């Protein structure tokens, strides 16, 4: 499965014009300063923001011709946006229900997903009773339970405090490794992007400035923004040099 997208959208003063490609089982991270168009890129992919041109092809089929609810594209945001009036279980069961499953069938599927993320004990909990990490995992289970072919994540870990972030990051990486679709991640924290992604795309001012593995980008930063970001990272983590290990989670910027 291959995602091939040319994302064009006008959000004055920004004009987004980005071409991205990502394969199944691969995590592509979009990195860039705030206001660079990363979130807009995800919203165009998902069908939430109307594009002014371009295309979104999945295995050559035009995804852009379908409305958001029929794209099989799931999105995970920094605010996990669980449905506050539904239990954790019914949050996860929402997707299967929308896809035509009966109530008990959807609940069975949701239970299996909650077990997979290790939260079946919290099936009856309301979102406000969940910790931020638990909310992230329920939100992830909810996204995956709807059977997406493309998973979009917009700074999924940004709402967590420094203490829980490493744990959440490794949990997220673990669950993503089982996901067989295409995954596109937006981040503005390079270590996070590098830990979760196989490839990085650097977006600045609505344009893709550089693309490559985290190691390649680290070795030959092509813009001032990414060079400064790497310099500040190097200053905070002395002694670590960029390595060329392509396996997910083993690359440090």
């Amino acid at each position: 499965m291959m995602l091939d997208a040319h994302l064009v959208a006008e959000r004055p003063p920004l004009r987004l014009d980005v071409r991205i490609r990502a394969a199944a089982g691969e995590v592509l991270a979009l990195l860039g300063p705030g206001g660079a168009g990363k979130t807009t890129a995800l919203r165009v992919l998902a069908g939430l923001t109307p594009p002014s041109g371009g295309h979104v092809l999945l295995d050559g089929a035009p995804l852009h011709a379908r409305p958001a609810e029929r794209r099989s594209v799931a999105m995970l945001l920094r605010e996990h946006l669980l449905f506050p009036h539904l239990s954790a279980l019914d949050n996860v069961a929402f997707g299967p229900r929308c896809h035509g499953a009966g109530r008990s069938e959807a609940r069975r599927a949701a239970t299996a997903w909650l077990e997979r993320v290790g939260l079946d004990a919290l099936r009856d909990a309301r979102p406000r009773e969940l910790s931020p990490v638990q909310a992230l995992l329920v939100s992830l289970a909810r996204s995956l339970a709807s059977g997406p072919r493309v998973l979009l994540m917009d700074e999924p870990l940004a709402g967590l405090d420094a203490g829980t972030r490493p744990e959440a990051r490794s949990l997220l990486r673990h669950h993503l490794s089982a996901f067989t679709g295409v995954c596109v991640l937006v981040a503005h924290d390079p270590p996070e992007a590098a830990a979760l992604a196989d490839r990085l795309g650097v977006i600045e001012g609505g344009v893709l400035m550089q693309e490559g593995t985290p190691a390649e980008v680290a070795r030959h930063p092509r813009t001032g923004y990414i060079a400064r970001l790497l310099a500040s990272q190097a200053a905070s983590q002395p002694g670590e040099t960029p390595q060329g290990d392509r396996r997910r989670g083993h690359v440090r910027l």
Partner: protein
Amino acid sequence: MRVLITTRRRPRGAGHRALPDGPSGVPLVLAAPAAAALLFLVLPIVALLVRAPWTTLLARLTEPEVLAALRLSLLTSVLATLGCLVSGVPLAWMLARVAFRGRRAVQAMVRVPLLLPPVAGGVALLLALGRDGLAGSWPAAVGLSVPAPAGAVVLAQAFVALPFLVVTVEGALRACDPRVEEAATLLGGSRWTVFHRVTLPLVAPGIAAGALLCWARALGEFGATIVFAGGLSGAALTAPPSVYLGLRSDPEAAVVLSLVLLAVSVAVLTCLRDRWVNPA
């Protein structure tokens, strides 16, 4: 911050003429009109309570005319509220969630009955839905015109009360993060599924508040009702016109009915206290 303010305050009398303070430190020039305003609002209610025929209250309440007026008021206002709910919630949703041309104009139009004198609203309704009205003869055919006064009462009440519901629900929808609905859409929910399984439950408190306001307004409707529903006669005689008529023939009955309407207002206010008295 506090320190900054106190250190920067000029000493009294330097440049500003000091105003005399009341006992609690509030300037009298503010305290006196505030007290007058409060008195002005409270005194009529106190008068109503003082002059109410408490000993004969129950007997008065069960008089056939009073009961009939209350029953008609209750029936028509509930029907008007239901009608407003069925049509007003979708209208509020359109205004809050769909970007269409002329949305601002529609928003303004929805608010017109809030300021339009109800009597003028009644005349307008008559010209639109009355005999030989703009809408033709179908309102009469389905029992919503002058020949069917109760139906006309419902229409008059709905006309003046609908904005309360729409404005309240629209506000509730705007306060609710549309990205939650987008999340539901991406999970595969059609617009209708998202609306009734996510949006409606999320704004349910706002809908309840709007319905309560709408009902209270419908219950108190007078001006549009007497114009549109055929004057001050039997079949359209809800509680407010009865109060008006009663003042001449039977003042005690008027006081009793007013008391009932006051009790309803207090009850509605109690239900809405978190939204109106202490808005977060």
